[in-house]
């Protein structure tokens, strides 16, 4: 009887071994696809040369981040993405996660902002590995920071926007993408390089 039990046990262990090379992570199943959206659905309230609207937002790491705390210290890049758990957004920041070298080269910090709440952002960013930059929640008052920059869409999400702010806290350049398309890494690098021009 012991032998039978042993054989049965070995057979039950078989699938784990047989599937060892094929345990594909089902990450795509977690993503909600909203379909094709209106490319841009807001009116920008800032322009190069303007003072960047200040804000203090909660970070996924647990602390708060104030934009003006970087004034006279570092350049800042704000990456607004529309919503957690959506297709394009979910693979934008993981790309930036391996692009730290470009930000360091131009003495810039990256702040990722969405209008999602902290628990949602926590769960979502956990899927991206350990992010080197702060992810901030513009959840409440809902989208207030996005609204102050003019990137809050009519459905309460934000645009897919990159805001480049110099050390003096002034807007250097702005890139609003078609919400359905991820801005290229070249766009990020060009914005960073532009921060150093005229210094």
């Amino acid at each position: 009887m012991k032998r039978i039990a042993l054989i049965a046990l070995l057979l039950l262990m078989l699938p784990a071994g047989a599937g060892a090379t094929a345990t594909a992570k089902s990450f795509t199943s977690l993503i909600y696809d909203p379909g094709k959206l209106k490319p841009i659905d807001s009116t920008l309230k800032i322009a190069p040369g303007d003072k960047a609207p200040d804000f203090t937002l909660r970070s996924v790491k647990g602390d708060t981040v104030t934009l003006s705390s970087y004034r006279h210290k570092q350049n800042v890049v704000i990456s607004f993405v529309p919503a957690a758990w959506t297709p394009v957004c979910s693979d934008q920041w993981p790309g930036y996660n391996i692009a730290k070298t470009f930000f360091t080269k131009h003495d810039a910090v990256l702040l990722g902002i969405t209008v999602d709440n902290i628990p949602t952002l926590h769960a979502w960013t956990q899927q991206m590995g350990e992010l080197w930059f702060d992810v901030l929640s513009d959840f409440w008052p809902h989208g207030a920071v996005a609204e102050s920059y003019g990137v809050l869409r009519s459905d309460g999400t934000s645009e897919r926007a990159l805001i480049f702010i110099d050390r003096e806290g002034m807007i250097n350049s702005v890139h609003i993408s078609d919400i359905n398309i991820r801005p290229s890494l070249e766009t990020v690098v060009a914005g960073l390089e532009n921060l150093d021009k005229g210094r």
Partner: protein
Amino acid sequence: MKRLVFLLLPILSVLSLVLPAFSADAPAEKETLPQISLPVPDSEEYRAYLGLKQAPGETFTVNDIDADVLLIELFSMYCPFCQEEAENVNALFETMYDFSKPEFSVKLIGLGANNSAFEVDHFRNTYGVRFPLFPDQDMSMYNALGGKGTPGFIACKKEADSSCTIIHRQSGGFHQPDEFFKELLNKSGYNQ
């Protein structure tokens, strides 16, 4: 003995249902790799690795690659799972490289889905990738190959007429380079 058979039958029945769910996709019928066209790399090292006769500025097809077994990785610089898998893929490449000989070679290329050349270069530099990577910005190659997420892997075996028969498809990482390499060899029919 009857008791043994009686006990094992239901277990084997359950296993027959469960095992396919743990397997990577295996083409049911003979499926030939689509003729995707790629730019000839500027790097002489890459051209030598791929065994290309064409010059930079020209294009080549996957059938031109001098390999008995070709593995294509579908990746994206932006995909965290591709980043996580990069070390394993590099290890797999080294295993393939060390194993390959003129009589039988297994080679690897990567296609950066929805990635620009700049983004592919950044991925290559970040992870020290030694095998050729190509941008597939409009995802035409990804779509032609039937990609289903990244990372993804498609392996084919070169036939006498230079066509390449698909022997393995997989969505998601393989995590264990040596095991995966053995699996590819087995599916290629390579006699060790």
